[in-house]
């Protein structure tokens, strides 16, 4: 499904502030796998997702999606198969546009934009049905500008938008981190129903170790641009946050100083 080999990304190459953000990343995802990604600040998690999405072009290595090489494809040309959810709910929706306008934009992910009416009555009905399933009452607010919604509502809408056209691969970057605990839980539940239960191949970055252990089928840990831990479902059973920290020490040879990573 997704095959990354020998991937390097270096920022500010040859300058004093040169930063090797990713080094020799090798990763293979099978179709339908749901992988949680953890690691401290600056470990390279977002950079990895950005390379896969095409926002950054890697300096070395290749990325294949479904057998097709996409290493140097511009981001907007990968959008047909890859969807993204961002940490900031503002990034996932267009604030000045209405709920239905946002959904209509997402319904044509990866398609050519034509000179025909953007929203048909039939699509409006589809939007209402799908929104009703979120149980946030958004089905009655199709023509509300998204900027009037709460952060949680916007993030839920972003999740729905991402799955409106079934993606081959979903990239979620700390998409619950800026929400209050209760809302974060709701959005996490939605993530389960919309991505995990639908067997959409997913990479989900999180800073919550509990969450990383409970969700999905596999866990990887990044440290200084390298994958230092990769545990699949069988091995994950019986793994606790404490054990995970121990494993981190063993793999990185360092004490874990990052409080954020420890936050459960």
């Amino acid at each position, binding site marked *: 499904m997704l095959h990354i080999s020998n991937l390097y990304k270096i920022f500010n190459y040859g300058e004093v502030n040169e930063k090797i953000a990713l080094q020799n990343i090798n990763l293979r995802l099978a179709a339908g796998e749901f992988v949680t990604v953890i690691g401290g600040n600056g470990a390279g998690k977002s950079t990895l997702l950005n390379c896969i999405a095409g926002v950054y072009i890697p300096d070395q290595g290749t990325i294949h999606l479904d057998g097709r090489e996409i290493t140097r494809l511009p981001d907007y040309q990968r959008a047909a198969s890859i*969807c993204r959810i961002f940490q900031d709910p503002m990034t996932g929706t267009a604030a000045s546009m209405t709920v239905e306008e946002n959904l209509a*934009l997402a319904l044509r992910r990866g398609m050519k934009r*034509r000179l025909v009416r953007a929203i048909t009555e039939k699509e409006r009905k589809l939007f209402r049905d799908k929104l009703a399933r979120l149980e946030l009452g958004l089905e009655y607010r199709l023509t509300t500008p998204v900027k009037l919604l709460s952060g949680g509502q916007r993030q839920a809408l972003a999740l729905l938008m991402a799955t409106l056209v079934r993606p081959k691969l979903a990239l979620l970057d700390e998409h619950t981190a800026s929400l209050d605990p209760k809302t974060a839980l709701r959005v996490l539940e939605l993530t389960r129903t919309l991505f995990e239960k639908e067997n959409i191949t997913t990479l989900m970055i999180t800073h919550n170790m509990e969450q990383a252990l409970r969700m999905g089928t596999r866990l990887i840990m990044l440290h200084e641009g390298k994958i230092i831990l990769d545990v699949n479902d069988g091995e994950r059973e019986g793994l606790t946050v404490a054990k995970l920290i121990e494993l981190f020490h063993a793999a990185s040879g360092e004490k874990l100083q990052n409080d954020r990573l420890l936050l459960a």
Partner: protein
Amino acid sequence: MNLTLLWSTFNLGLLYGLLVLGVFITFRILNYADLTVDGSLPLGAAITAILIYTGTNPFLATLAALPLGALAGLMTGILHARFSITPLLSGILTMIGLYSINLRIMGRPNVPLLKHGTIFDALTGLGISLRASQTVIALAVIILVIVGLYLFLSTELGQALRGTGDNEVMLRSLGVNTNRMKILGLAISNSLVALSGALIAQYQGFADINMGIGMIVIGLASVIIGEVVLGVKSIPGRLCAVVVGSILYRLAIALVLRIRFIEYTDLKLFTALLVTIALISPKISKRFKQAHKLAVAEEGQKDGLSEKVGG
């Protein structure tokens, strides 16, 4: 102010309304401050004037402004999108280049049209006055453009354009080539601005190399006046509002000119002040509201009523 003056002010407001609609597309829809307009307005005026001067049908001469304006926008768009030059600088580069091009097109700094028939003479044969003919034609063009823009903005392509101005990152993640969208928006905008120049030249009876100076500020002033005065939210409402803004701006100028010690050359300063006030007034009113809220909160605390008032 007498009725005739009021009427011609209204006509001129409508013709500048096309410039304002162009500025609305870049400034409000694309979120892009485009200075190309200072060059594309005289570009439209220049091409139309010289074509009419050399005997072309005024209708065709006016239409010629559209593709040329689009080309100017395309240029700015390519400088910005392909070569990553900032929006402001891209616009300035095109604008400066256009100054020479406009001179080349006209072959002299000023082309008079007083002895030539213009598009506004089209209806005078029907027995209505020139002024009435100007109103009818200007209104027809404005309505056509507003309806066209509204229809375009509700298509898939138009929505992608709106989305690009709102959230470029998201639109790219949804597979939209946002660079292409910006170029498209700039081309549409500047073709309208050039059309505005083409009609204004015919209205005033000449095209002048310097007629573009300060057009961006006039456009912004009108957009803001229209939005503040009418305060509508829907897209068709906003399109109409900015044209009303253009007429109100012309009215304000006409009124200011009646003040005895104000010279015609002071107008640019007046416009700059107007836009400055319009741009900072939302911030001032916000601060005022905040102060008001705090005062209310303090009152409430004194009464033991209020718990917490967020700012």
